């Protein structure tokens, strides 16, 4: 184990990703401190999802450094290894296992030995049941425990996926547009849930919805064309000339 080179939970420096000559990320750099909640905003095509792909090992950057906890080089690891380190990801479109029950969805996500031999001879434990109960209570899905996930409403799926993230017990959560397609009441409830999660975990939220970002009340990073153009509180960035130009297309 090498000495941590940075105190940051997530450290991105000069990340560049090109697809067929198109630069999705152009020397992207920012850091997220341990215990922080960070909102990432930006217009379509700003590189938000590509950034998440780099952090979770789906996409290898052409250049740049990505460190997790100051020691782990994320550009050298694959998805499973990164998940094992403690980075959880929630997708933009809610992705749950539709054919499994709500309970089994959480069970599969529970932090546990992921190797084939372990799952083949795995048997339920009271402790696992308690953890599932706890997560279903937080995400308000207890009454739907036996239901097949494919039959849930859009909002319920979003919450189930957040529950699956919690079950993984990650150190860092990447949450992609958690309130897309939600009602105002659901949006507020989701903001509360994320704040609650943030009490013991670092959270990065990618979001379009400005009202929701304001509700979170955290530091905001604005991306445009694969690079950071502004950073600060929501009030600071929304007064920034460059941000206004990018968002309003002036």
């Amino acid at each position, binding site marked *: 184990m090498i000495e941590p080179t940075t105190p940051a939970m997530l450290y991105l420096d000069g990340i560049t990703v090109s697809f067929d000559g198109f630069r999705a990320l152009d020397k992207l750099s920012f850091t997220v401190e341990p215990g922080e909640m960070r909102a990432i905003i930006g217009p379509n095509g700003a590189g938000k999802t590509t950034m998440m792909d780099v952090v*979770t090992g*789906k996409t290898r950057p052409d250049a740049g450094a990505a460190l997790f906890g100051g020691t782990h080089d994320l550009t050298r690891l694959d*998805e*499973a290894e990164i*998940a*094992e380190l403690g980075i*959880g*990801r929630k*997708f933009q479109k809610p*992705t*749950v*296992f*539709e*054919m*499994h029950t709500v309970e*089994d969805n959480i*069970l*599969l*996500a529970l932090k546990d030995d*992921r*190797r*084939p031999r372990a*799952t*083949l*001879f*795995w*048997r339920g434990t009271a402790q696992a049941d308690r953890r599932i109960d706890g997560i279903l209570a937080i995400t*308000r*899905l*207890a*009454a*739907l425990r036996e239901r097949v996930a494919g039959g849930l*409403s*859009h*909002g*319920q799926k979003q*919450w189930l996926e957040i529950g*699956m993230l919690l079950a*993984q017990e990650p150190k860092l959560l990447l949450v992609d547009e958690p309130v897309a*397609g*939600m*009602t105002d*009441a*659901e949006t507020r*409830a989701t903001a509360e849930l994320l704040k609650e999660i943030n009490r013991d975990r670092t959270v990065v939220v990618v979001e379009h919805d400005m009202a929701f970002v304001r509700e979170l009340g955290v530091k905001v990073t604005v991306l445009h064309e694969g690079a950071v153009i502004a950073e600060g509180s929501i009030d600071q960035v929304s007064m920034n000339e460059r941000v206004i130009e990018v968002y309003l297309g002036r």
Partner: protein
Amino acid sequence: MTPFWLTRALDRGTVLFIALLAAIAVLVPALNLLLPPSSPFYLSTYFVALFGKYICYALLALALDLIWGYCGILSLGHGAFFALGGYAMGMYLMRQIGTRGVYADPIRPDFMVFLNWPELPVYWYGFQHFAYAAVMVVLVPGLLALVFGWFAFRSRVTGVYFSIITQALTFALMLGFFRNNFGFGGNNGLTDYKDILGFNVQAQGTRCALFAVSTLALMLGFLLCRAVVASKFGKVLIAIRDAEARTRFLGYRVESYKLVLFTLSACMAGVAGALYVPQVGIINPSEFSPANSIEAVIWVAVGGRGTLVGAVLGAVLVNYAKTYFTSGLLAPYWLFMLGALFIAVTLFLPRGVVGSFRHWLTRERAGKPVVEATLAQPALSHAPPRPAE
């Protein structure tokens, strides 16, 4: 005490199906051996051999359903593992012929004498022992699947691309086995068997024993598949089938799961092939033909993939139909019928026979409770509110 992984596998349907197979394993040989041919309940030796063959196909279908139905891996080359298991058994049976062959060579099978091979190739060593051949029946297909799967799954070859390379695999093996200098009898394959474990392979009693053993193998294979799919491992497989990327981001090493499952399935296919060969009396390179593997996929689709029972029924039903229709006036049209059957099942019965029946059953059972649940909706007010559509 029954181990937990077994009790977990034994739901009511499984117990019933196992009991049915056990009854068939006992009754069919009994009706053949104990009754006089004049009895209305007598089953002919031809019938026993024919259905013994179907049982082997059913085991192959089961192996295919395990990977296709539960993990979404569509192998169009599973006939290769079946044929390799068959060749391993065929090599044992060839070595049992000894001096009773046309050239009466105690060591070399006839085709080697005919080709003027001075001695037995090294890879034929040991096959005179049944135990060695039995190990090879599982080991050879298993090893091939392990190596092939390791490269394919690690490179994340999935879907139709995987299906195509499995077709290439079985086609390549077919071309290899057709060659005389490959050492497996060229296009004639291995045949003219005399004994298995000292018993005449043609004898009525041996045929009945082979039928019973095949059915027993099918029972064990079925139990094994149930134990796999009923475990948490099985839940991971379905997760991979339905959302592979999501499973990866949860930290599961998808390629390891696929590799374990694919290898297990290949071993099962190998056992099926080994039991098939003494019952049909020949193994030749046409068993590797890509069309055979595709036919096996049709059996599973017709029976219902992801049901296990469906794979077994599909294999027996389609093969019975094949035997029935290819021996009459309709013989020239069988392939058209098979094609039409596949299209019809895909269009009108995508869940297959057993899958559709189960679907209908769960809807029938859930019919009333669903209405009650909707009426009781206010009681679930602590559930998150519905989003605007």
